[in-house]
């Protein structure tokens, strides 16, 4: 009885803490001024939303830019991560630990350590201030997550099924489509979700490599936050988190089961 009550209390506190920082953002987006010590704004307004959704603010075009870049990064990461994950999950080979270390390193080393050097390299290659450059830069922290999640999936995968299908005359694409994909599908989805989110929330890499010209939502959001427009910041922040929520609901429905779906991709 007391344990159940404790659990419930801990749950309520946890839920409140997870939601709390989003509450002032949401209120601000509808506020016309909101000064200490007012608990709630005295005046409400739709001005911030009207501005954020107008063509002049550039928020919506930033949203599409962010989407396109995160989408492209995810697709490329999947194409590269699938064979790499397969190699790490299915095979044992000399130097595997080294390869694993090399693959994890980019996820651990912060952007500030590599972005300036990378920018200089991209300038020479004509890739700076371009979408291609930004997608390539985003792949650095994204590929490790994608590859490791897929490697875990392939480690639980029995290639005998593929051999059977092949011996029955299935072409490579058919084998992948009908045998491999269904078995690693959930992990591919989780890996893609991670890839999308990591790219979606990049700030410094986009700022440095994109040279300001590739204007993703975090850059737009930051420029209003830095200028103290809390109302517009609130509106953009909500626009910014919405797609992640939608993607999460979508994937959570696709991956049924009792346990939180993201955790499945992270299982050892």
């Amino acid at each position: 009885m007391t344990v159940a009550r404790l659990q419930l209390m801990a749950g309520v506190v946890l839920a409140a803490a997870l939601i709390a920082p989003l509450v002032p953002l949401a209120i601000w987006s509808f506020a016309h001024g909101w000064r200490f010590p007012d608990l709630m704004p005295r005046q409400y307004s739709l001005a911030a939303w009207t501005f954020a959704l107008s063509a002049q603010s550039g928020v919506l075009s930033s949203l599409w830019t962010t989407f396109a870049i995160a989408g492209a990064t995810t697709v490329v990461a999947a194409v590269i991560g699938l064979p790499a994950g397969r190699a790490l999950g299915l095979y044992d080979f000399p130097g595997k630990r080294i390869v694993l270390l090399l693959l994890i390193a980019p996820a651990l080393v912060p952007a500030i350590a590599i972005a300036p050097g990378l920018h200089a390299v991209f300038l020479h290659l004509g890739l700076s201030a371009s979408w291609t450059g930004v997608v390539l830069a985003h792949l650095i922290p994204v590929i490790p997550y994608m590859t490791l999640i897929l490697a875990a999936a392939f480690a639980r995968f029995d290639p005998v099924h593929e051999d059977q299908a092949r011996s029955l005359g299935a072409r490579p694409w058919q084998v992948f489509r009908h045998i491999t994909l269904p078995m690693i599908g959930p992990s591919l989805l989780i890996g893609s979700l991670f890839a999308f989110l990591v790219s979606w929330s990049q700030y410094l890499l986009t700022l440095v490599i994109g040279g300001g010209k590739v204007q993703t939502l975090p850059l737009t959001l930051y420029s209003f936050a830095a200028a103290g427009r809390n109302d517009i910041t609130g509106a953009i922040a909500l626009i910014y988190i919405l797609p992640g929520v939608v993607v999460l609901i979508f994937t959570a429905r696709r991956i049924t089961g009792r346990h939180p779906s993201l955790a499945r991709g992270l299982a050892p």
Partner: protein
Amino acid sequence: MSRRTRPLLLLAPALVLLGGLFFAGLGLGLVRSFRYMPALGLDTPDLAAYAAILQSGTFLASLGLSLWIAAASTVLASILALGTALLLRETFPGRALIGFLVQLNLTIPHVVGAIGILYLVSQSGSFARLAFAAGLVAVPSDFPPLTHDPLAIGIILTYVWKELPFIALILLANLQAIPPGHEAAARSLGAGRWQVLRHVTLPLLMPGLVAASSLVFAFAFGAYEIPLLLGAHAPEALPVATWRGFTAVDLMHRPEAYAMAMIVALVSAVLLALYASFALPRRARP
């Protein structure tokens, strides 16, 4: 195709791309940190940039602050995440909702979290207003400074808020992989709840916890935009000081900024070694 070359072929795209990008960026930074920039007339590599920053009080203060932020955030987030994971393993009303909220938090970008925390805990933020309504404070300065403060509490709060769910989900995945028999056997031998946790569950969770903590420590140590929003004017977090060095218009400051970036990378390398020794099995597939 032999069993030896096939995995390497499969790995080639990932290794070439990551090697090409990541190590080129890091490598060029390393070369420039040795003050080798022929375009500026610097053509004899030396260690002067490192000597300069290591003797600078500002740099050491920044390094210390960033290590404090990363350590405090990682320890707090790990402890709370452990509790969260153990909680989410149980069945109780509202568990599904909390499970969803934990995952939801993972999708929220760090910048958004940092701004939300700022509006929440600053001296004129929502909590200060609640304190005013409760009669605890009369003016904003009565409320403890939690943002732009010397202890970087606002920054740490942001990381804890954001990384707790990340660690918790990894731990939960690990918990689900523990064969149920282990804990039950210990219980049947008379071990209490705490003893089972201490001697059975925790040791099994350790590799996952260390791996996740290394990632969190590296992130909290190296992220730029969060201390930029929530940090005090001095000392600056190391990434902020590094970026300021890069944007200084005097090109002669660049090698020092690159040297700071390399020290950030060095700290990550230590974490990588830690990650490897705990989370990378000697042989992946028995």
